[in-house]
Every structure is written in C-alpha cells, then in structure tokens.
C-alpha cells in the first residue's frame, strides 16, 4: 500500500464525499424543518446536471473558444443549474407537499416518491434516455502534480467550492434573519407562527436553498465525470440521504461529516486490500470494547439508588459488563430479582454480541488480507452503511439536532 495510492484514494473519497454533502444538505434541512424525507431531492440533483449539460451543449462550448468565452459558458451553466432546480424545488413544495403537511409520516413520503418518478420520466421525455455527455474540456482533464502525486484540478475545485458553500450555509442558518426563522420553524412550527414568522415562506426558502445546492452538485458532477444518466439521481440521492442520516439528520454539520465518512468508506472500500480495511474494523472493535467496559458501566453506576450504593453491588454491576460471558449470562438466565442488574445483563450481552461480530469480521478480513472488494459492489457499501446506521444508531454520529417529539 503505497502512500501515493492512499493520498489519491483519499482525495477521490473527499471529492465524492463533498458531492454527497451538497445533496445531503438539502435532505437534512428539509428534514430538520418538516420531519419529512424529500425523496425527490435526488432527481433535483439530476435536473441540475442535465440543465448544466444542456446549457453547455447549446452554447457549443469547446476548447477552441477563448478562455473568457469558456468561462462565460461555464458561468451560464452554473446559473442555469441553480435557477432551474430552485424553481422546481419551490413548485414541488407548493403543489405536492404543502397540502399534506401534518399528515401521518408516510403520506407525504408517498407523494415525494410520486414526484420523484414524475421528474425522472420527465427527464427522459425531454432529454431522452441516453446519458447526456458534455465535450471534454482542457479544464476538466487538467491536473497538477504535488510531491509526485497527480491530482485533478476539478477535484480540488469541487472540494473548495463545496467547502465555501457549506460555510455560507452555516452562516445563513446561524446568523441571518431567515436562518433564525428556519431554526424556529424546525423547533415548533405553531409557536413560530404565533411569533409572527411566515412558516410557509420559511419552508419554501428551505426547499429553494436545498435545491440550489443539489443543482450545483449536478453541475460539478457533470463537469467531473463528463456524463450523467437520467436515473443517476436515485443512487446519488440515496447515498446523500445515507450521509444525512449517518451524520444525524436535521443536523447541518452532521450532513457534511456523514457525507465525507460515506465518501471515504465507499472509495476506500473498493480501492484498498481487505487487510488494510480490517484495521478500521479493529478500530471499531476498540471503540466497542471501550463502550462495553468503561462508558456504559460508568453511566449505569449512576443509576444505583443511594440506599443500595454498596461496594458489592457496584462490583456486581461492573462484573455484568466486564465479564459478560459469565456474570452477564448468569444474571440474564437467573430469575429476575433486581431490575437494574437484569436490564444491564441484557444490554451487556447485546454489546458483547456486537463486539464478537466485529472481531469475527476483522478476523475474516485479515485471513483474506490480499483480496480487494470488486468495484461492482460499491453501491452495496452505501446501502449496507445505511441499514447498519439506521438499525444501530438512527440518531447518527453527531445526533439529531432536533430531538424527536413523541
């Protein structure tokens, strides 16, 4: 495993991660405000890419043009790929989501699925079902060499542009009037309304900003890869949603963290040997053992009532976690006499099962140290991450910014 390889894989991971982040922000903002998964968001991204490509093709951009003309074409493409998605985001919210506000969770989700299909089929009707391709420009294939490592300029552009946009978004949400309205609406829509906030306008604004970011994402992807398929939004959208959940949905920094983690996982997953990947599992195992042996027992000790706080009782509680195979299982199987001990035993056994599973996975990976996961499994990685995160920690890495109300 050479250093060059690791650096270039890391940059690749960062690049796709940043793209995911741009899309994930739209999911997370909408979810934060409305508790609603905007399933059609991935299609907005595709439309952004298609509109950008259409603009470039219409203007007939090519390397024969002067640098200023090329820049002009690109600027036009950016503007188009922002404005069209913004308009669509606004209209869709108005037509398909607003009438359903306040209904059972799955009802607006169904509507969003319908919208996503309508958008996808409309793309086919307007642009055809063949992937759209833009002419190769000097800019898109340009690369620089740093310390013997070749890096595409566009990758750097994507990373920098996304980072700037995210900083801007953070400023918008944290420090502006409309940002404050967004936060208030997400906390309690009714209360925000009573305080004179136009929640409809705020929600529409949220959709518009999210769609604009997705549109830019579409533009960057078409520039980076040169082509885009009508159904690309499905996979990008799902991955971005995974990223949002991974970071903690509703949480803006979380979406970025989640997107980068996902981008890295995906890229590393298929670019390096299992022997190398196994170390990540080992790190997870160390964390899991720390949770089982130190963090959770410490928290449980605080649950002991004053009148029972004897050294023996504390020791038996610790033993349940630290010597789970014996004390934990024994307590679990014994007749329930003490609520705290039996609940803890159940918990400890679950934690132990998780750690054993990680250990087995790591062992299997070390045995097959030289094998590499085939790239055709790459989409599966994201789906597996999504399932695992939803099963074990639905609140994500950084936690949901807005706590769930029952």
């Amino acid at each position, binding site marked *: 495993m050479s250093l060059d390889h690791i650096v270039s894989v890391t940059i690749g991971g960062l690049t796709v991660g940043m793209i995911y982040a741009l899309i994930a922000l739209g999911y997370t903002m909408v979810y934060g405000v409305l508790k609603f998964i905007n399933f059609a968001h991935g299609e907005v991204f595709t439309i952004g890419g298609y509109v950008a490509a259409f603009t470039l093709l219409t203007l007939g951009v090519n390397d024969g043009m002067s640098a200023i003309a090329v820049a002009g074409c690109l600027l036009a493409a950016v503007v188009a790929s922002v404005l069209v998605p913004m308009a669509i985001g606004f209209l869709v919210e108005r037509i398909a989501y607003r009438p359903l506000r306040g209904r059972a969770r799955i009802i607006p989700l169904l509507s969003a699925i319908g919208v996503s299909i309508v958008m996808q089929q409309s793309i086919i009707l307007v642009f055809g079902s063949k992937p759209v391709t833009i002419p190769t420009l000097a800019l898109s294939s340009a690369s620089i060499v740093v310390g013997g490592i070749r890096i595409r300029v566009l990758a750097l552009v994507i990373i920098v542009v996304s980072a700037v946009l995210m900083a801007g978004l953070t400023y918008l949400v944290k420090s502006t009037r409309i940002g404050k309205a967004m936060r208030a609406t997400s906390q309690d829509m009714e209360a925000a309304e009573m305080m004179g906030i136009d929640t409809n306008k705020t929600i529409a604004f949220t959709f518009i900003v999210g769609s604009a970011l997705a549109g830019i994402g579409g533009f960057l992807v078409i520039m980076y890869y040169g082509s885009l398929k009508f159904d690309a939004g499905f996979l990008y959208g799902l991955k971005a*949603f995974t990223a949002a*959940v991974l970071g903690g949905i509703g949480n803006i920094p979380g979406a970025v963290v989640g997107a980068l983690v996902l981008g890295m996982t995906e890229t590393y997953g298929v670019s390096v040997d299992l022997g190398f990947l196994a170390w990540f599992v080992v790190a997870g195992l160390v964390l899991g053992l720390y949770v089982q042996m130190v963090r959770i027992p410490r928290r449980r000790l605080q649950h002991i009532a004053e009148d029972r706080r004897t050294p023996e009782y504390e020791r038996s509680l610790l033993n349940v976690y630290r010597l789970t195979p014996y004390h934990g299982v024994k307590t679990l199987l014994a007749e329930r006499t003490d609520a705290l001990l039996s609940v803890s035993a159940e918990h400890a056994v679950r934690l132990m099962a998780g750690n054993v599973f990680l250990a087995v996975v790591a062992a299997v990976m070390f045995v097959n140290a030289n094998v590499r996961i085939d790239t055709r499994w790459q989409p599966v990685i994201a789906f597996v991450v999504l399932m695992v995160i939803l099963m074990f920690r639905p609140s994500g890495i950084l936690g949901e910014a807005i706590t769930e109300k029952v």
Partner: protein
Amino acid sequence: MRLSEVTERVSGAAARVPRSVYAVGGLVIAIIFPLLNMAGWVETAWLRVGVISLLFVMLSLGLNIVMGETGLLNLGYIAFFAFGAYTTALLSSPKFELRWPFLVVVVLSALIAMVAGFVIGLPTLRLRGDYLAIVTLAFGEIVRLTITNLQDFTNGPNGITGIYSPRLVGEGALESLGSTGPAAWLVIDKPVEYYYLVLACVAVTAVLISNLKNSRIGRAWNALREDELAAVSAGITASRAKLLSVVLSAGIAGFAGSLFAYYSNVISPESFLFMQSVIVVCMVVLGGMGSIPGVILGAIVLQALPQVIRQAAGAARSEFEVYRMLIFGIIIVVMVIFRPEGLLPDTLWRREAHEVDPREQEKTRQSLFDLEEGEKDLEV
C-alpha cells in the same frame, strides 16, 4: 369541489351494493375471461396480460398487509418476490440440473421469502415509519445488486433461463399415464392453465387475508397503526405483531414470485427493480390501503389498463413505458392529496382521511358533545 361531490356520490352508491356481490361478480368475470379466448374471441396475448395482472393482484394483497393494515411502508417489497422467483429458478431449471416437485418448490420459495422478511424485520421494525421505508428500500436494492453480482450462482444480469414447467405429480406417475389426455393437464404449460392456477391462488389468498383482517390479529395490526403506545399498553406485543405482518406479506410475495418464475420461464434482475416496488405501492394507494377489493382493483387497473391503452394506441413499448411510469407518479401524488383513502376505501382509512385538520375535528367533536348533552337531558 364539484368533482369530489360526484366521486362521493358514485362511491356512496357503489357502497350500498353488498361487497359479496362485487366479489362474486369479479370472480365470475375472471373465470369466464379465458373461455372467450378458447372461443377465439380474444387473443392469447390478453391471457398473458391476465396472468401478470393476477400476479400483481397477489403482490398488492401481500403489500397491503403491511401498508394497509399495520401501516408500515415497504419500499423494497419486490425483493421478496425476487427471493421466491430465484428460489424456484434455482430448484427447477437446468442451472443446477434440479427439478424439484412443484408443490415443494412453491412452498419453499414462500418460506425463503418469509425467512428474508424475518431477518430484515427483526432489527428494523422498531424504527419509525419513514426510516423503515428507507431501510426496506436499501434492502431491496441490496438484494437486487447481490443477485446481479453473484454471477456464478444467478448468472448475473443474464438471468436464469429454461425454468421447467410445473408438474402436479411426480415424474414416474406422469410417464405411466402417457403424454396425452389427463397427463397433459398435470403439466401446467399453457397460458390458460397458468391463468386458472394463479386465479385460484389469488382467490384463496384474498379469502384468507380477509378472514385475517376481521380477526383478533387484524385488529391488533390496526390498533398498532392507530396508536402504538396505547396498543402495547393494551397487551399487544408490537414486535411480534409487526413481524408477523412483514413475514406473512413476504411469504405471499415469495409465493407469487415462484409462480412468476414458472410462468415466465426466464427471470433476470431486471424484473426486480425499485420501480417494481413502487408500482405495487401505487396499486395499493390507488385501490385503497387496507381494502382488499380496493387493492385488487388497483392492481388490475394499473397492470391491465395500460396494456389495453397501448394496444389501442399502437405505441412503441419503450416510449409507452415512460408515459406509463409518468402517469403512475402522477397518480400517487394526486391520490394522496385528493383521495388518500383510495378508490374503494377501507372504513378505517376513510375515517383517517377525513379528519385531516385537527381543529376541524375538534369542532365536530364539540358539536357532537353538545348534542349528547342535549340527549342526556331528554333521557332524564
């Protein structure tokens, strides 16, 4: 709201006819339909449309258990269909040179789909509705991609070909009867035979599910959907009841998948795209979540009607497919906004759909309350 008035009146009139009349009428039409083909009035192609429509009826009935009764959205439902289809294809095709008996294969296909439902349901059913929908979607995609990638086992994107026709009796018995007369009926290989086989399965499934709907278990599902906290406090084991509904619906999909594999002879991952799951969801939404006649109608309308229109318009297949999906998308949006209870609504969902605005609802309650207080005075 003229339109809604009209639909309300039509559906009101339709509701006054007993449901059994519709059931018997529908069944009679379904039974007579192939006879028209035998008489030479209808092309065999329509019989094929009929078989596929019936398979989708079965899928919709299965999905309706989780969506309509328990209120869980499953966006990867087609994966269970795939489990059934691939189990059948592997056990009854030249791929591994196996030809297990029909009944064994069908039952095993359903069982394997049920196991898959159990495995995916166990860790995910405590998730709230929208997350569950996405997890099931991810599951469906994982299954499809895995099928595509495990080329040694499933032939990847090329699929498995040459699936044998089902035989109702063992090999020896068939040979002793010769190849004509009754023996020909014991091998199902003509569209009309498939049609009646699937029709019988659909009819039985519909009856069994409708019994279940009006039983203690069906009530438990509805209670969980209405208010989970109250349901568990009333003694319903949420995890078990939900798992039961997921496993049962998976079993139905696996069963349908098995019949599909036998019928189509060839299966490939293309048949199990996410879009297929959405189509089944669309059928349930259109017909009416929780309503058995509704989902049957939904499946037939969305599967058979487009074919009729395509024939009439003489459109090319691929282009037609785009319009078909576009219309499906529009149907979902329009239905959930304007008639979320579906074409032939279930009582509970109709009530659910008509108490949208909580303030409005409180007003009705208040007026009923006042009315009741008045009544009490009369009683005294």
